[in-house]
């Protein structure tokens, strides 16, 4: 949670305020706020700052196991609020985080190694449907993803050859692999194969096989994170893997020293414990199982070959729990979004600048990185939405104008042109073509 907040804070004003790329007016006009988001209750920036601080404190409270039930609920609520306020910036890692926080609200995870438990490690039983759901959620994620990947681009092993060409999604390091199509093909097949077989490892009754499965998934996601701009998706699935770890890991010497160290640290925390042993009753567990089945159906429905499996009026359940999930990855890789944006602006004194890249004067040539001025993995998905929808384009340019004028007092933007330089990826990555399109221009006031 804290890492997630850290990734959002540098872009907070431009992503989460009414002066940003997604002002609340657009959310209201499109009926797009389907979760009662705390970050949408006011546009006053001190309020948003205070809310961020509360959000961070709640995360610390959860880590310490202080008022665990309350912190669990607030963690889930504030995290989903943040995600829904700027739905454009979400990726798979956010969905993993929000689903983990939701299911964990029903776990007794405050009864050991927490301030509420007096800092002590305890043998606790946590059985029941909730634990089964916690184990099945990542399994569902990978198998539904595999189902979506039953597409020619994946089955031919070509997906990485396209995906790593996208400067929006891939780091510059990824280009070092492009001259080796065979390596990319092997990695594509390996990913697909492991997502089919790996969950079986996770569900194995044999501890060492489970441990291997956990380690392999963690390494896989970290590997993705080295080459692709996936942010917290590089490590949030690893959190689910903790649930699969066999007990001998915690009983080993390193495991015991980690637990002992945690106990000592928690023992130093001067906060009054608030123990609350609560297990969800059977009816609640049954409802959670039904909810999980429903969420799985929603995830499968994202595939057009299956179509809708649940009635539209029930979509509110997925929206209000933050459990709406979509696990299709690069299935349309040949048309993957690639290129760069230039927001060429004319200032009142006649100078020309690029509000997005930050260059002065603006340049049309391919930049070294597509997000020079605001480098973050939180940009690719919003840019895909913005460049594909006219209604978001003026607010995007307006947000960049406000951001520029704030950082450069006295510079007044009088005209701006939003241009997309789109590269069309080819298997032969040398043969890309570039098309320039003017998406919007005018006075961004």
């Amino acid at each position, binding site marked *: 949670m804290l890492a997630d907040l850290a990734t959002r804070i540098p872009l907070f004003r431009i992503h989460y305020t009414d002066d940003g790329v997604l002002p609340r007016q657009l959310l209201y*006009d499109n009926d797009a706020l389907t979760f009662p988001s*705390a970050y*949408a209750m006011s546009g006053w920036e001190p309020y948003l700052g205070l809310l961020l601080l509360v959000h961070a404190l709640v995360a610390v409270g959860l880590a310490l196991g202080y008022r665990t039930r309350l912190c669990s609920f607030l963690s889930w609520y504030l995290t989903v609020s943040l995600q829904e306020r700027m739905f454009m910036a979400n990726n798979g890692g956010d969905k993993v985080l929000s689903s983990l926080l939701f299911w964990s609200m029903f776990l007794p995870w405050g009864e050991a190694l927490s301030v509420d438990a007096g800092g002590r490690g305890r043998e606790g039983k946590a059985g029941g449907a909730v634990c089964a759901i916690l184990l099945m959620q990542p399994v569902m994620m990978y198998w539904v993803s595999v189902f979506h990947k039953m597409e020619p681009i994946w089955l031919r092993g070509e997906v990485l050859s396209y995906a790593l060409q996208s400067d929006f999604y891939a780091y510059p390091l990824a280009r070092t692999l492009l001259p080796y199509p065979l390596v990319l093909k092997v990695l594509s097949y390996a990913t697909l194969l492991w997502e089919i077989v790996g969950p079986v490892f996770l569900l194995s009754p044999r501890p060492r096989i489970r441990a291997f499965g956990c380690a392999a998934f963690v390494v896989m996601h970290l590997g993705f994170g080295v080459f692709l701009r996936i942010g917290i998706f590089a490590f949030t699935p690893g959190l689910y893997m903790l649930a699969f770890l066999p007990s001998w890991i915690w009983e080993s010497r390193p495991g015991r020293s980690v637990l002992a160290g945690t106990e000592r640290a928690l023992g130093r925390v001067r906060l009054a414990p608030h123990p609350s042993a609560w297990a969800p009753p059977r009816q609640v567990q049954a409802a959670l199982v039904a909810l999980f089945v429903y969420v799985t159906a929603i995830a499968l429905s994202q595939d057009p070959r299956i179509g809708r499996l649940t009635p539209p009026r029930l979509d509110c359940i997925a929206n209000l729990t933050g459990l709406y999930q979509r696990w299709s990855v690069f299935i349309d890789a040949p048309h993957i979004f690639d290129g760069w944006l230039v927001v060429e602006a004319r200032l009142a004194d006649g100078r020309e600048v690029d509000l997005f890249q930050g260059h002065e004067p603006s340049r049309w040539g391919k930049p070294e990185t597509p997000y020079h001025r605001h480098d973050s993995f939180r940009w690719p998905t919003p840019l895909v939405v913005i460049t594909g929808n006219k209604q978001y384009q003026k607010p995007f340019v307006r947000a960049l104008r406000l951001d520029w004028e704030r950082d450069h007092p006295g510079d007044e933007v009088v005209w701006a042109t939003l241009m997309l330089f789109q590269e069309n990826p080819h298997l032969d990555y040398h043969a890309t073509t570039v098309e320039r399109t003017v998406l919007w221009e005018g006075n961004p006031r």
Partner: protein
Amino acid sequence: MGGESSLSRVLAVFRVLLAAAILADLALWLPDFGFFFTNSGVLTLSGMVTDTQVGRDAFSLYNSCTYAIFPYLLFLATAIAAVALMVGYRCDLAAPALWVLELSLQNRVAIALDAWDCARLITLSAGLLMPWDRAWALRPSPRRAGHGWVAGLLLLAVWGATLLPHPGWVEDAAAFFALGPRAHPTADYWYVLVGVNKEGRRWNLHGHGDREPEFSRASSCPLGDSYREQLYLAGLRQDRNWGLRYWLAFRYFVDLGDRVRSVEVYQCQASGHRLFARWPMHGEIPPQGSATSPGNGG
């Protein structure tokens, strides 16, 4: 002991009366709920956050979700919290919850408020610090130490002092803000709606259809005969977009049948009246400032 008991009873009466006042206000909102609280009404969420700085910065739970049922649920929650406060059930939870809900409600409909709304909220704020459920309470809160009632009275005094510079008091509509539009002693603006049929005949929509239009204050009430609508209309001259929204909401909520082809809105004062806007009952709303829409605002 006897003294504390008397004070507890006084505070309990205060609690019950305040809760009753809030419930009465909620009941008065009910006939116009859709008109003011939904996105089909005059005060769309989008309009609130774009047209006024206050609307943009104000905190409101109503801003957080666009599901159509959401404002109804919040309204219901406000009523439940007020009932809980009235009967003295867990006031330590009910009172803060009611405060947040009442603040949210008022910020949602900021253009249609008056001084009584401010007073209610201030009084509720003061009550948060008072041990007002020690007597006549269904389930008193855990006891608080200290003289919370003193802090509450101080807060009341401080808020009262800060209310005095409120723009509603210092502008020309001060009495209006304090006492509501009907109590205003001198002519302020009022609006008269005139229906027009296909032959061009005109008549007051509020009143008898067989007479020529009248522009007196008595003819001013919009069809809903709502106090809150009058407050809203009084604010129309502050913002040109809100007249259009009023009209969009009017068409959505009011069915005048096929006889009325268009409606003219006249802005009236004691010195005379002028055509404020003309909108068709069917089809597209003309853009602001066009020939058929003379424009909004003063």
